[in-house]
């Protein structure tokens, strides 16, 4: 019995020892495995962070110029992390076997949102404005940013010319603007933007039609234009030309960097002579020299001296300068005289016919009931239709009556004509809807004696 117990005790001890050993070994293995897994997870995490950081780096070209035969670039960090530029590659892409150089150990730091200016000034290379280059910068994390800078005629820009006015009076100045738009995807920037002198051709030619540059183009040039942006140049010219002279303006950028743009404008002679005053100053023209009046003498008289307190009728010629539309004259049109120094005025309404006579002239009321409406009895043709000059009579005391009106007592008067009407297409009847029109045609001065 004792031996049996001893054997069992030893076995138990042995089993226990082995179990403990197995457990220790097993736990060690499990612990080691977990540790390995943890380390691997850590490496994966680090790798993920690196990859994420790489995607958060972004460098953009904000400006570039060639200063002292070296690039002068402004780079902006638009990413979310500080970047360190460690290397740059510059390639001459214009020449067939253009050079390709690397520049090491740059170590240029740019904070997020920050800019690196004058980049390229310390690179030992000679940059020319008539050559194109590809500049690649490499960051410490491995991001590369490539900027294509075009010079010479390698990249075409789009230009557009605009004139400040489509028509210009002779002797006036006009501003010509050249808009330069960079929408060429082949280049991130184009350097040395300078316009050619504008070529202005008048038609018809001749010494009477001239365009003289006032000052110089403003600005003279731009150092560069970045993709997606716009620049403008302006010229001011003094234009002299005969009426309706066409001026064709053509312009482009130097070194054939752009298309040839074109714009036209026309000269218009502006004068205040009786023959063309209305052309430039209003639709209806009043021919002052045709002004006449009649009172009690049975005759039409010219001049400005009217007899006081007498029935008076007046007439004057109108010309309609509307090219396409006739003017139908309203019954409210009147010749009005204001007596100087008083509040008195005297309105002589439009009449159909006025006949001089003694002791008074006779008038026909400004009525025309058939066809309706009983208004717009007088038509002044459009200028294209011809016969657009009409003598208009005034004399009625009220609209559409035959009662004569008297001029006032002795004094000086200033007169003006209130013309009302409507413009309708030349061949439309007087019932047309038309465009309502009113014009005050000054000034006639008379003296009542």
């Amino acid at each position, binding site marked *: 019995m004792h031996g049996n117990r001893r*054997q069992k005790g030893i076995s138990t001890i042995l089993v226990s020892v*082995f179990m403990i050993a197995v457990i220790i070994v097993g736990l060690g293995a499990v612990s080691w495995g977990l540790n390995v897994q943890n380390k691997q997870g850590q490496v994966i995490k680090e790798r993920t962070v690196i990859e994420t950081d790489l995607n958060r780096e972004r460098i953009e070209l904000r400006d570039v110029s060639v200063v002292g035969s070296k690039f002068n670039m402004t780079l902006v960090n638009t990413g979310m992390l500080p970047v360190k530029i460690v290397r740059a590659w510059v390639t001459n892409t214009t020449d067939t*076997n253009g050079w390709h150089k690397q520049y090491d150990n740059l170590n240029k730091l740019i904070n997020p949102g920050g800019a690196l200016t004058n980049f390229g000034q310390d690179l030992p290379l000679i940059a020319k404005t008539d050559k194109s280059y590809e500049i690649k910068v*490499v960051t*410490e994390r491995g991001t590369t940013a490539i900027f294509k800078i075009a010079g010479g005629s390698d990249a075409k820009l789009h230009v557009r010319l605009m004139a400040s006015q489509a028509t210009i009076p002779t002797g006036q100045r006009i501003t010509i603007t050249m808009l330069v738009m960079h929408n060429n995807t082949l280049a991130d920037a184009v350097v040395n933007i300078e316009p050619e002198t504008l070529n202005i051709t008048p038609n018809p030619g001749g010494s009477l039609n001239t365009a003289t540059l006032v000052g110089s183009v403003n600005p003279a040039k731009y150092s560069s234009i970045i993709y997606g942006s716009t620049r403008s140049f302006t010229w001011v010219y003094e234009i002299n030309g005969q009426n309706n002279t066409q001026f064709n303006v053509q312009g482009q950028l130097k070194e054939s960097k752009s298309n040839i743009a074109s714009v036209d404008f026309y000269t218009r002679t502006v004068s205040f002579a009786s023959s063309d005053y209305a052309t430039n100053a209003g639709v209806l023209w009043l021919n002052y020299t045709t002004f006449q009046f009649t009172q009690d003498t049975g005759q039409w008289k010219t001049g400005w001296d009217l007899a006081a307190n007498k029935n008076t009728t007046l007439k004057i010629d109108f010309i309609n300068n509307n090219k396409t539309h006739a003017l139908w004259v309203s019954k409210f049109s009147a010749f009005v005289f204001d007596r100087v120094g008083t509040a008195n005025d005297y309105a002589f309404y439009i009449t159909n016919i006025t006949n001089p006579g003694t002791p008074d002239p006779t008038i026909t009321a400004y009525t025309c009931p058939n066809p309706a409406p009983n208004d717009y009895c007088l038509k002044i043709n459009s200028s294209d239709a011809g016969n657009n000059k009409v003598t208009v009579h005034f004399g009625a005391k009220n609209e559409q009556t035959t009662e004569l009106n008297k001029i006032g007592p002795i004094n000086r008067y200033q007169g003006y004509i209130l013309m009302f009407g409507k413009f309708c297409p030349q061949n439309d009847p007087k019932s047309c809807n038309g465009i309502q029109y009113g014009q005050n045609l000054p000034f006639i001065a008379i003296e009542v004696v």
Partner: protein
Amino acid sequence: MNVDSLPTVRTRDHIRFRRKKLGIGTVVSSVIMVAAVAMLGSVVLIWANSSLNVEKTRIANDYANNTNTLRESFIIEDVWLSTSPANYVNLTIRNVGDIAVKIKEVNVTSLKSDGTLACTGSPPCTQKINPSNSVIESKQSLMIAVASIKWYDPTPGNINSLDITITTERGSIEKMFWKVR
């Protein structure tokens, strides 16, 4: 063996002698059994531990390789197609990781615009090299020249791009397409 089951010769001396004899045998056999079990157990334990250590070492190596492969990071920083000397492609590789990498193989293939091999003949349109001295330390770069590869064809579109594949000693692969101007 149970002593009680032995034949019954019931003399006092005989019984005493027999008991003495039986006690020694039991002890001896017990000792032998215990020793055998302990020895066998120890052998098994040592073998298991040894095997585990070997396996741990293997796994540790695999782990080290895998994590180092994961930590490898490099870019093809620049590709320059050289005409002098002709038919050269110069690759600049930058190690942007924090451990050194060793370039084991560089494979360059000229492709048409439809992605098929651009040519056959000489010089070939595909070239594979195993560069020597190709260890790139962390944050450093190395230029590798791939010679005798046709990358230019006067007919537009005949060679549209280069398919570049770089493989490291640890098995990392960097692949890029470079458009030929």
